């Protein structure tokens, strides 16, 4: 059969649910951030696929995807800075051990 829109949407749905599984079940804070990056990538695939198959005149989908990539980079930077700072103060990066308000 021909390659269609539905193929890309199913791929991005699977990537999104795998990223969600990583966010829900991993202990290491950096692994949770990796799951968030996977979810953002799945959303990007959706945006670009819709741009090509549903609305190809203006390149709005690709522009939106570029902005999402930029914002994902910012968010990864700030998130990882937080993880480093937490490690320096609390001496752990496992999120289920960070469960008291005052150290």
């Amino acid at each position: 059969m021909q390659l269609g829109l539905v193929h890309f949407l199913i791929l991005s749905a699977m990537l999104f649910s795998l990223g969600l599984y990583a966010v829900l079940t991993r202990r290491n804070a950096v692994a949770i951030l990796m799951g968030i990056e996977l979810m953002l990538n799945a959303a990007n695939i959706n945006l670009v696929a819709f741009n090509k198959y549903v609305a190809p005149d203006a390149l709005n989908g690709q522009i939106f995807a570029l902005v999402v990539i930029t914002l994902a980079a910012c968010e990864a930077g700030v998130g990882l800075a937080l993880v480093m700072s937490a490690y320096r103060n609390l001496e752990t990066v496992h999120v289920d051990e960070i469960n008291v308000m005052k150290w």
Partner: protein
Amino acid sequence: MGQLAAFIILSAITLVATVVVVGSGNIVRSALSLVPAFLGITGIYILLQAEFVAGIQVLIYAGAITVLILFVIMLTEHGTGVRFRQVNEQVPLGMIAAGALGAFLIATFLTTPWPMATGSLPPYTASQIGTTFMTNMILVFEVTSLVLLVALIGAIVIARRER
């Protein structure tokens, strides 16, 4: 036909690498297999005729974000190769939740009648993206650069050693 074969190969690479990312017990191995996942997604973008987005994906995701993640892992692990338990006690609930969401999404995608357009993308998307950023989407461009500036300064301030 060739495009379908390419799509199957690329999505196989992406999905296998993603399963290693979310399921591996060794955190460095799961960070390193982000690279084939992102490169597979780059191939998907090229299939969708978005070559500029594909180039930026390689440059930023596989080249910078992965390096950043690896840096933070290497600077926060307690010694090399010490194995910690990587998953918490919510694994069955997590699998049910993620699986339910994935199934729901796939069901929605398969049963919606999508309005397929008949136009086609311009052959050289990079110049078109540049023109659109500078004419229609100039506000988006400027606000994104401000967000980048704020994130840069914020990350430096947060990660600095307190004197």
